[in-house]
């Protein structure tokens, strides 16, 4: 007889979220996790929140360089080019 692992408690489920999203759970643990989600709206929401955070964190603020930073960097490049010693 195959023993089915006991159902997950919510407290265990939230600890699996990162591994679940990265595809690091074994097949049986993934099934167990998904089975838990199918009956637990709160853990489903927890997972959705973590997903939302990952997605929102990736919305980079467009950060333009200041003209001063631009000048400094151009200067850095020209000094590097002018000095063959710096080229290794």
């Amino acid at each position, binding site marked *: 007889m195959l023993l089915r692992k006991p159902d997950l*408690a*919510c*407290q*265990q489920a*939230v*600890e699996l*979220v*990162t*591994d679940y999203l*990265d595809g*690091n759970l074994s097949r049986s643990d993934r099934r167990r996790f998904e089975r838990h989600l199918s009956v*637990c709206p*709160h*853990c489903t*929401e*927890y997972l*959705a*929140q*973590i*997903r*939302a*955070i*990952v*997605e*929102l*964190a*990736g*919305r*980079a*603020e467009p*950060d*333009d*360089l200041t003209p001063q*930073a*631009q000048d*400094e*960097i*151009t200067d*850095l*490049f*020209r000094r*590097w*080019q002018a000095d063959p010693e*710096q*080229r*290794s």
Partner: protein
Amino acid sequence: MIVRTLPRMPDDGELVERLRAGDEQAFVVLVGRYQPSMLRLARTFVPNAMVAEEVVQDSWLGVLRGIDRFEGRAPLKAWIFQIVVNRARSTGVREHRGAPDLGGTITVDPARFDSSGQWIAPPQHWSDRVVDRLFAEKAADRIHAALEELPPAQQQVVTLRDVEGLTSTVVCDVLQITEANQRVLLHRGRARLRQILEAEFGKL
């Protein structure tokens, strides 16, 4: 219908070739593309923004000096970040030496579960609100601010994984940490961001 062609952005591979040939414009484009991320990353290692800027300047010099040796096995961005991490580590005072600081944040306060591990104080539901553009913008701003409140090691991993979108393997390479540490740091860091957001969610 009028179709407008957007100005073509050269990809990293092309910029590397042009930089090797001494093309200043290619360098300017690269700096525009990666400097903000480099500053964010450097800032997680060093005490203030001024030192972070020095680290980044120094890193660009490292990029110029090393570009002939860049082999393209990892993405250019990861290679550049590795240079930043190395420079920042040799300057930084924020980092603890020795064992990596995993940052002792718990995922969810145990008091929110009953003795059988079921929620007694479940999370307030907000994830469906991210379809609202205004809510999403505020939440994204709050997440970026909250990142700075994380312990440095968590901040580094979450920034590289979630803000920069690098894979776990590349992040381990860039930060020179093990896969296991990466997982713990990411898990705790994201959980901490969620806690911070939850505490302020009513104001968003």
